[in-house]
Structures are given as structure tokens and as C-alpha cells.
């Protein structure tokens, strides 16, 4: 017994209609997901482009309320703190990744792998408070060094994980070839596996770098921010995202303008890093803020 032709027909038509509608809904969702990026980039460029000037990057902030001046202190501060965070974070993160990929096939490795994932999801503001208790409170002094340590802690799980993934992508045959030639495992890793995975690891480091460069939450209670130009690691230091936050919440119109211009600089740097890394290495590695 089959259904009457007309019934089967209408059933089929309904199924095809549902198919079309749902395909449309999925496309709509994709469009909807892309719109915010376009809007944000559009507004940051439109509002920020006017505020860009040589003064902005070569002058220090004026006394509050006096238009003009720039944000050199914040740019330099961000550079210093991110640089130190990198110097601390890279060896530890890459070491951790090497352990997980090369020696981590045991229970300890599983636990660490899990903790790396969890640490990556912990709010950066709690990391900031941790470093506050660890370094700022005992010394009774906000320091750039504390800021760098907080940034390094955020950097660590991201790069550890990418390193592990990149090392695991290195073909087994390469390792076996080195071992068969009599190389000890450490030489195999250092001379064969790491160089092969190098582009991927660098990609991960660059992306993690662009992420910590945009972080303000862990710096609020560690490096605090600074009105004045400072390169003293043991004193408070300014950073780009901190100054954007302060200016955006402040009362002056020219502060808002400069906040947009700084956002443009920050987004510009991050997009350039992201695009370059992708163009150079083309690996599918992404970092979520």
C-alpha cells in the first residue's frame, strides 16, 4: 500500500520547503554573526581615524582637562610589560607544551592537560587579584613587574596548548628517523621536532601576544596605570588598554576621541599580527580573547 499520490506529493513538498527555510535560517545566522565585526571595525576606524596624529604617539598625556597631548606613556608601558611577560612566559609555556606532547602520555600529563585548559578559561581579573596578593600587597607598591607576571599567567596556558598541538602534528616518522640514528630523545626534540613545529609555535606566540596586549583586567590592580611617562619596573606603569578604559569612562570629549584613536591603534596592531601570521604560516590556530 502506498500513499495516495497527492498526499505523498504534499508531504514531499513540505519537506523540501522546510529544507529551504532552514538553509535560509542558517545563512541568516552566518550574516548576523559577521555584522558585529564589520560594525565595530567600521566605527573604530571612523571615530578613531580623526584622532590619529603624530602627537598622539610622541607626547605624554596632558594634565586632565587640557586637550592635546598623547599617549606615549601607555604605548611604551604596554610594550615593556608585554615584552617582559613574553620573556617569562615563552620558556615556561613551550616547556609545558613539550612535556605534554613528548612525555605526557601518563596520568600526570592528563591532569596537567586538563588544568591548562581550565586555566585558559579563568577570568583574567582573578589572575590580577592573585598577583596583587602575591606581589603588590607585600611590597605595598603597584609595579610594572607585577603586571607582567599577571600577563604571563594568561599567556602561559594559551601557548602551552598550541605548542603541544603543533608538536603532535610533527610526523612520527621524523622522530623515529632521528631515534634510529642513535639520537637521544632530548636531541630528537630539540634538533628535529621543535624546528619542524617552529612556524606553528611562533604563530601561537604571536596570537597570544596580541591577546595579552589588549588585556586591561589583569593590570588594573598590578601595574595600576600611570599619569606620567615611566620605565621603572618597580613602579606603576601605564598600558594602552588601561588608558582606553580610563578615557572612555572619563568626562572630557577629547578623552573619548583619544580612546577611539587608541582603540584603532590596538585593533590595527592585532589585526595586522593576525593577518600576517595567517598569511605566513596559514595554520589553523586561533586565540579567543
Amino acid at each position, binding site marked *: 500500500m502506498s500513499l495516495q499520490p497527492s498526499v505523498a506529493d504534499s508531504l514531499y513538498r513540505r519537506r*523540501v520547503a522546510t*529544507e529551504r527555510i*532552514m*538553509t535560509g*535560517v*542558517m545563512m541568516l*545566522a*552566518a550574516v548576523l*554573526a559577521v555584522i*558585529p*565585526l564589520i560594525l*565595530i571595525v567600521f566605527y573604530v576606524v571612523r*571615530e578613531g581615524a580623526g584622532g590619529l596624529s603624530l602627537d598622539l604617539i610622541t607626547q605624554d598625556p596632558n594634565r586632565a582637562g587640557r586637550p592635546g597631548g598623547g599617549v606615549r606613556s601607555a604605548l611604551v608601558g604596554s610594550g615593556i610589560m608585554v615584552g617582559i611577560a613574553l620573556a617569562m612566559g615563552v620558556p615556561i609555556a613551550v*616547556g*609545558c607544551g*613539550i*612535556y605534554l606532547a613528548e*612525555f605526557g602520555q601518563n596520568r600526570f*600529563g592528563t591532569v*596537567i592537560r*586538563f*588544568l*591548562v585548559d*581550565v*586555566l*585558559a*578559561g*579563568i*577570568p*583574567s*581579573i*582573578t589572575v590580577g587579584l*592573585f598577583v596583587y*596578593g602575591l606581589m603588590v600587597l607585600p611590597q605595598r607598591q603597584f609595579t610594572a613587574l607585577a603586571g607582567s607576571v599577571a600577563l604571563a599567567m594568561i599567556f*602561559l*596556558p594559551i601557548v*602551552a596548548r598550541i605548542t603541544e*598541538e603543533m608538536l603532535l602534528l610533527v610526523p612520527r616518522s621524523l622522530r623515529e628517523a632521528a631515534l634510529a640514528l642513535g639520537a*637521544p630523545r*632530548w*636531541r630528537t626534540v*630539540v634538533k628535529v621536532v621543535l624546528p619542524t613545529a617552529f612556524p606553528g609555535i611562533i604563530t601561537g606566540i604571536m596570537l*597570544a601576544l596580541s*591577546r595579552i*596586549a*589588549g*588585556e*586591561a*583586567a589583569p593590570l588594573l590592580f598590578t601595574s595600576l596605570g600611570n599619569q606620567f611617562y615611566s620605565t621603572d619596573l618597580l613602579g606603576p606603569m601605564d598600558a594602552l*588598554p588601561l588608558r582606553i578604559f580610563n578615557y*572612555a569612562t572619563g568626562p572630557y570629549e577629547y578623552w*573619548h576621541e583619544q580612546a577611539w584613536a587608541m*582603540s584603532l591603534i*590596538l*585593533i590595527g596592531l592585532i589585526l595586522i599580527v593576525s593577518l600576517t601570521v*595567517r598569511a605566513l604560516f596559514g595554520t589553523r590556530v*586561533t*586565540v*579567543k*580573547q
Partner: protein
Amino acid sequence: MTLAVPTGARRALRLENRLRPGDWIFMTLAGTAALTVLAVILGLFYELTRTAWPAVRKFGPAFIWETTWDPPKEAFGAGAMIVGTLLTATAALIMATVVGVLVALYLVEVAPRWVARPVSYMVELLAAIPSVVYGVWGVFVLGVFIRDHLGPVMVSALGWIPLFDGTPLITGLFSAMIVLSIMILPTVVAVSRDVIAAVPRSQREGILALGATRWEMIRLAVIPYARSGILGAGILGLARAVGETLAVTLVIGNRVAIPHTIFDPAYTMASLIANQFTEVENDMHRAALMEVALVLLAITFLINAAARLLVWRVTSGGRIAVIE
């Protein structure tokens, strides 16, 4: 775990017995680096508990539901902030999951390569924008749009529901929900895309061979298979939304009270800390803020752990190439 001479063929095959002295040093160095992760997590819990201890002792469990936050009188309860955090995060989660899973399905099942690549790249770029920039955009663009256009329309259309009957301002709960849902969208898309891509081909081919349309295939074969992984994706997004600080601080309106409508100003745990910590009025105030951070840490830790386990199970222990 010694370098002793192997006693049998099986032991000889074990990794430890094939390591030479140089390997041991190398492994120990790498292992120390790995231990740092453990140290950081333990340190986080220890340090926050230690500094929060005066408040933990004084207020006890009532801290969780008490809604007074009065620094001069040293009366503290995180109730309003916990409600604000959960409300914004849950609303963001729902919006981001609905859109995000549809986008992921589109990218994996429907879109041709030349569309899928740029679209997923653009969604990923959304994740690269710093939190503070979202905040600035949320205040000066989105907030103004909500106050002048979207808000009034919503109030006149949905105002008969008490939840929507408010006065739209630039900052408030609704602005925070929108900004947060945009911010966690990349997480949801990326994780559910990987989970959906991990559904075996045979699963799809089987139902297509029975004559299913593409949507029937997605509904009957793909989604059920990927369900717990998609749940994991949502929970990972939730964890991000709960801990998000600066963007929310800028757009939520910062008022310690339980909101009654979605246009009311409110507070989240992270934004309270960001706003008040550098201007604490007394030691108890600082301890109370530390306790808020401890609650926040515990919540995100649990959420993350649950999500990881779910995602790991679906991708059968394989890692997914997404870093939170």
C-alpha cells in the same frame, strides 16, 4: 621509574627505560614547566582564600544571597552581583548558542569552501578584539542605538511584559547582554564547528541513503550525535561571559541592586571588582571584594571543568584547535 636494567621484554618497551641521563634532565625541565600550571591554579585558590578570609569568617554563607553592599557600614553580600552575573551570562549564552550553532552548521554542512573560510575567519577575528574596545563600542554606539531606537521599540511592543517595561538608557542589563553575546559567539561557533565536523561521515551517509533531506540529516543524524559537545561549547561560552570584565563594566550601569527589567542598571561580580578594588574604603571592603573574586573563580572553574569533560568526551580525547 628508574634507569635499572630491564628485567623483561615488556619492561624494555616502556618509555622510562629507554631514556638516557640527558633525557631525564630534559624531561625534568619540561615537567617543571608543566608543574607551573598546577602551581598557578593552586596559588590562585590559596591566595584568594587567604585574602578573603576575614570576610568569609564574618559573613559566612549568607554572603552568597545577601544583597546589601555598604562599604562604610562594613555590611557586604554578593547576592545582587551574582544575580547580575548569572542574568547577563545566561541571556548572552542563549543568544550566542542559537546563532552560533546555526552558524557552525552552516559552515560545516552547507557553505562552499570559498564562503566558509572567510566567514569563519571573520568570526574568529571577533575574538581578537580586546574587551575594552567592545566596551567603548558598547557605550558610544550600541548603547546610544538602544536608548534612541531599539529600546523604545521593544518597550512599546513588549512593554506589557513587566520584564521589558523599563526606561532604556545607554548602559544597563540589556546592553551588557548584547555585548556579551557578541563576545562569546566566536567561542561557541569554533567549538561547535569542531564538534560537528567530528561527527562520522557514515552517520550522515546512512541517513542520506534513506532519502533524508539535508536538514533532516542535520536534525536526525548530526545534532543528536554532537549534542553533548554542543552543550560543552555553550558552557565554555558561559564561562567566558561570567568572567568578562571591562566590556561589561563599561556598559552595565554599575548599580548594586537586583534588576527588575532588562533595561535596569545592574552589576556583575567582575565589574564590581574592577570598579571598587582600587578605591577600597576599609580592610573588610577589600576582603569582601576578594571573596567576590573567590566565588567568581570557583564558578568559572566548575563551569570550565564541566565543559572540558563534555567536549573531550565527544571528540574522544582529541584536542580541538581552539584556545579560550
